[in-house]
């Protein structure tokens, strides 16, 4: 997994609450192998017409937001199914960070496993950020995981702030190291083995 280093990149505002995983990646594409990539399918049905042509007014189709690595979304982003493809589609399309007032729980968990950082900021600040980014298409945000800060928008004199965010220390450590958690868990196998013996003794029917 790629190490998460400080991201300074174009940030795109997505003005929709409750963006569910079916909108991030429709179910009909989920058979695709992980190695084939999902980036071109991100937001497929809101991004394109049924004949496949891109809708020019959708934020990610606007040239100013090309190369965006940060998405600033509205509440309950990534709600719905457990499909990790939603994170893969974002990551494969080049996104490293999503900022929102709240996230779907499973989407939130899946993000960290893919070097993708979901950041919760207060609703009012997310609204401000989206408005500032819409007024200044192509403006950048700095996401500093080490310092747990979002800074920006930078380079424009509009809506700048330094926002601290919370992150679970274990997840932060894994992201910074670019490590997945299986290796760490396997290193705990003695503890796990002892637990399993007690569990089996108490609940032999499992």
């Amino acid at each position, binding site marked *: 997994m790629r190490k998460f280093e400080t991201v300074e990149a174009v940030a795109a505002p997505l003005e929709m609450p409750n963006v569910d995983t079916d909108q991030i990646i429709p*179910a009909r594409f989920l058979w695709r192998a992980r190695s084939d990539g999902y980036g071109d399918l991100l937001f497929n049905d809101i991004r394109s017409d049924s004949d496949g042509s891109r809708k020019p007014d959708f934020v990610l189709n606007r040239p100013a937001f090309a190369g965006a690595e940060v998405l600033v979304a509205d509440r*309950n982003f990534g709600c719905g199914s457990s499909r990790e493809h939603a994170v893969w589609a974002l990551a494969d399309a080049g996104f490293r960070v999503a900022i929102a007032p709240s996230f779907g729980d499973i989407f939130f968990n899946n993000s960290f496993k893919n070097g993708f950082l979901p950041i919760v900021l207060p609703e009012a600040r997310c609204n401000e950020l989206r408005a500032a980014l819409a007024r200044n298409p192509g403006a950048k945000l700095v996401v500093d995981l080490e310092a747990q800060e979002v800074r920006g928008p930078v380079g424009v004199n509009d809506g700048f702030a330094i926002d601290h965010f919370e992150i679970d220390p274990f997840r932060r450590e894994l992201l910074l190291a670019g490590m997945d958690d299986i290796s760490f868990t396997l290193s705990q196998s003695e503890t796990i083995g002892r637990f399993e013996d007690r569990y089996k003794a108490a609940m032999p029917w499992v």
Partner: protein
Amino acid sequence: MAGTLFDHIWDRHTIMVRPDGAVLLHVGRHLVHDGSRAGFKALAEKGLPVRHPERTFGTPDHYVSTHASTLEAIAEPHRREMVAALTENARASNVTLFDLGDVRQGIVHVIGPEQGITLPGLLMVCGDSHTATHGALGALAFGIGASEVSHVLATQTLWQSSRPKSMRVTVDGDLGPGVTPKDVILAIIAKISAAGGTGHVIEYAGSTFRNMSMEGRMTVCNMSIEAGARAGMVAPDETTFAYLKGRPYAPQGADWERAVAYWRGLVSAPDAVFDSEVYLDAAEIEPMASWGTSPENAAPVSGLIPDPAHAPDAERRGAIERALEYMGLKPGMRMEEIPINRVFIGSCTNSRIEDLRAAAEVARGRKAIIPALVVAGSGLVKQQAEAEGLDAIFKAAGFRWGEPGCSMCVGMNGDIVAEGEHCASTSNRNFVGRQGRGARTHLVSPAMAAAAAVTGRITDVRKLMAGGI
């Protein structure tokens, strides 16, 4: 038992807590399906075996055909490969598989309880958000992503960064005629919103759930995720034990007695404190239908489609406007004026025997005037329905009687709703494009779906029950 039922199961499965608060949980039983290919692949790439194949159970459901329960019936090669990969992964890992051609095959959240794999007091996971269903038996069950599936396969454990909060939803009283568990959960979501349960595990309490069948409790817990919750659960009781007794993977003999003695203690303490509490009165719940593109967009069938002009804020006004535009509906229309072009009865929410009986009761002696599909949740449910003659009722009424699987709930097997069509569906999500690009989903109970099939519009099933139509 001190604390909540959730606390007890969480603590019972906690292997270790890191100084930073991360919790390593043991997984009692793990369910896999034909969407679990990536999880197995990641495991193989690391060269790791499945740690506990005897506690891992699989069945194909998302990609299977409803025309015949065979691999050959899956016409599209990519879909066929997903199912074939499960067969091969299960064989290579020695995981118990209820494969195509086995009468026990079906939707993973139907077969877990049906086989007695799901048990009170267990922590269970599956790579599917509707794993919440299994909480109906007093298990703590939640959905996980593909990376977590491979972690569970490799270690039978799962990391959680923090303990979820707890919410108790209490519903008391008797449900009126024509009002079903589906209407209860739609009413709960309409009340607390699609994000109301985010970060929480919900315990459903009160006489309405105590008097509810296991099938009904599964319908309610299933849609906990549509309320944003991680999981939903109902404390086990005599209804649970009677349901489980004798099921193939439930404890037998002396183990059964010992297990039941333990399970009887699985209740939240009277003084247990929940982070939030919600109350509903069963008598006030009507048959429901959704009108928009979020499960929270549901209203009583006697009601009206909301007017965005009356929304409390600009954000919600915009959301209602967008939903109505997608759905092709007008503010202030009566719910019963919503036209329906297609009906789907099935899914992990509503495909169990009781659901099929309720739908058949409405279909009996009537004719569907639009295409209608009924898909039993498992081979065993289908067999039982056929033994009861329900298939004959549906066929006589012009409904198609399909083979078990997820089918039109998510359309991954090719059973989709055409662009612009309104589908009355007993499934769980009315998201944009969920049942097919441009499809307009109306979430309803099985009885309400059958009513829509015979009238071609959203119809208050109570009028049909009274013989009025």
